[in-house]
């Protein structure tokens, strides 16, 4: 177990494709950090830089107190689970799990013990004599994880380990992988493009875009308080709503103006919000839908209603803006009918329209 530190890490491909751009990130000992972002954001490249599978163009990588920047993968004391699992097809499952241990020249008895232990943890002890071709996708994924944890590496790296599983299996494997990593307590860096995976698994989430780290925070903070419009739109399903807005002092209480209406904002000091082009960010579940008009509500018309069981997802139009709203499951407003929205002022996240970054308030 060890802490992992990226210092000003840069990685270019060819002359001008910058895959990782000046990334600083510290992963605490025993922490589970998820790198998440759209495809091509550099998250896998950053992971491969840590593994030693890519050479850096700048910066340093530390594991514990060792500068591993110029060490080959084998000397870094890491273990990696690949997206394709990379289970060696010419070796039996048992020999796959033992591979790293044999390379470390462990005693035969120790190898046997650790293989059995890793296999048991992943419930594949009955498959040790099979070849990869005789396994299902889910089993192969378990073999890859068992092989990685058997070496007891300082850091466990996982590159989209669940993305090749079908939806139902993925849900199951997600919970189990989280349990396993918590049990092992090993420092883990996990790459995924799936924001739900990121939210559900990580101690902290590191959101990447265009080779840069945009936000590193706990899942709830990233969800509730995105650092910019990109993070708000990328994390969460449905994405956070962003609509153009202005805030005016009003007489007494400040007023928020949207293209479809206005409502009071009960704060004392609108300081940084005054006279500024703003984007109002609000999650679908923080908008209340009512069938009757009342004070401080905004009128909207229903575009689409999608019943999702636990709630109904409404797409509504107010002025020029389209919003996704989570309505109660018993509310079925017909298409084109009017509804009235209450935007919870407490849950609004204000973004600057130009910089697209959050405004501290």
């Amino acid at each position, binding site marked *: 177990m060890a802490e992992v530190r990226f210092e000003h890490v840069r990685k270019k491909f060819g002359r001008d494709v910058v895959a990782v751009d000046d990334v600083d990130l510290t992963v605490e000992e025993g922490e589970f950090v998820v790198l998440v972002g759209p495809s091509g954001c550099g998250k896998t490249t950053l992971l491969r830089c840590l593994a030693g599978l890519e050479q850096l163009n700048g910066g340093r990588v530390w594991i514990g107190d060792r500068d591993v920047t110029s060490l080959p993968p084998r000397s870094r004391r890491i273990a990696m689970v690949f997206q394709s699992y990379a289970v060696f097809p010419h070796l039996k499952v048992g020999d796959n799990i033992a591979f790293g241990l044999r390379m*470390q020249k462990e005693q035969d008895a120790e190898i046997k013990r650790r293989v059995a232990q890793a296999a048991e943890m992943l419930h594949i002890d009955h498959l040790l004599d099979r070849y990869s071709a005789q396994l299902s996708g889910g089993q192969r994924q378990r073999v890859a994880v068992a092989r990685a944890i058997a070496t007891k590496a300082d850091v466990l790296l996982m590159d989209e380990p669940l993305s090749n599983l079908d939806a139902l299996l993925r849900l199951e494997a997600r919970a189990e992988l989280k349990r396993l990593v918590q049990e092992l307590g090993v420092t883990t860096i996990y790459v995924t493009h799936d924001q739900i995976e990121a939210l559900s698994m990580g101690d902290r989430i590191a959101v990447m875009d265009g080779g840069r780290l945009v936000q590193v925070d706990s899942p709830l903070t990233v969800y509730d308080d995105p650092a910019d419009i990109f993070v708000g739109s990328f994390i969460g399903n449905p994405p956070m709503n962003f609509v153009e807005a202005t805030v005016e002092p009003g007489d007494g209480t400040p007023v928020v103006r949207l293209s479809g209406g206005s409502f009071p904002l009960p704060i004392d000091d609108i300081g940084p919000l005054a006279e500024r082009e703003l984007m109002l960010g609000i999650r679908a579940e923080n908008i209340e839908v009512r069938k009757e008009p009342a004070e401080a509500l905004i009128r909207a018309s229903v575009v689409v209603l999608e019943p999702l069981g636990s709630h109904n997802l409404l797409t509504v139009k107010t002025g020029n803006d389209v919003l996704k709203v989570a309505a109660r499951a018993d509310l079925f407003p017909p298409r084109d009918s009017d509804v009235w929205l209450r935007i919870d002022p407490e849950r609004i996240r204000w973004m600057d329209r130009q910089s697209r970054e959050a405004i501290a308030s």
Partner: protein
Amino acid sequence: MSGESSARMRTILLHAGAVAMALWILVPIYFITAAAFSTQEAVFGYPKPLVPQISTGTLEFFLGASGVLPSFRRSVVVAFVTLGLAVAIGTPAGYALARFRFRGSDTFRLLIVSTRAFPIVILSIPLAVTFIRFGIDDSSFGLALMHTALALPFTVLVTSSVFAGISEELEEAAMTLGCNRLTAFRKVVLPLALPGLAAAAIFTWIISWNEVFAASILTLRNRTLPAQVLAALTQSPLPFQFAGGFVLLAPALVVIFVIRKYLFSLWGRVSR
């Protein structure tokens, strides 16, 4: 109705074409084989019996003819030396082409193929002169060098497609598990590539075994079997020609049959 019948017609034509092409190749092979395994007298006989009387007389006559056995032996030696050289040089090149993106790798690939577009006839005189100057004319080693040059494009392309079929992540996984590049290759890539590499090697062997033109130019007294048969063709009796044809044909056919799966992959078909 008409669409259905025209589709049916197309299928029939396709099959007829395939059958015609197969016969075009198979009928001569059949006659050569049949003649090679009949008595010398039967070779001249007409009409041929549908099921010939099997006899090794013709083959024995061919193998007993002067110069045939030594040239047979020489052919085998040249083919094996070619195999060794071509695999030793071609496999690393194939690996590099499959694994590394380097400037001009596409051009390099094209250049490899284009060596085969250059007619060897034009090269023959300067080649013979050069070989005489180096004193490797009329020798098995010299000829093996030439055959290596001819076989290398195939060796490089086939081995590169073999390596390209082995996921790079397997190698990387091996490296995270304690291997360096070399041990990762030895412990993971090589075992997986071995069948394909063997196929490439055997194909190289066949290229040398079948090659007649360079062999005829570069050797005189120490001819390989194809060159020997070709040289003797005009003044040899019919049974000799048939038996010679069969001896040259059989190994090539068997080998192509065994490794056909890998040859398809060379042309972009999935082999596994």
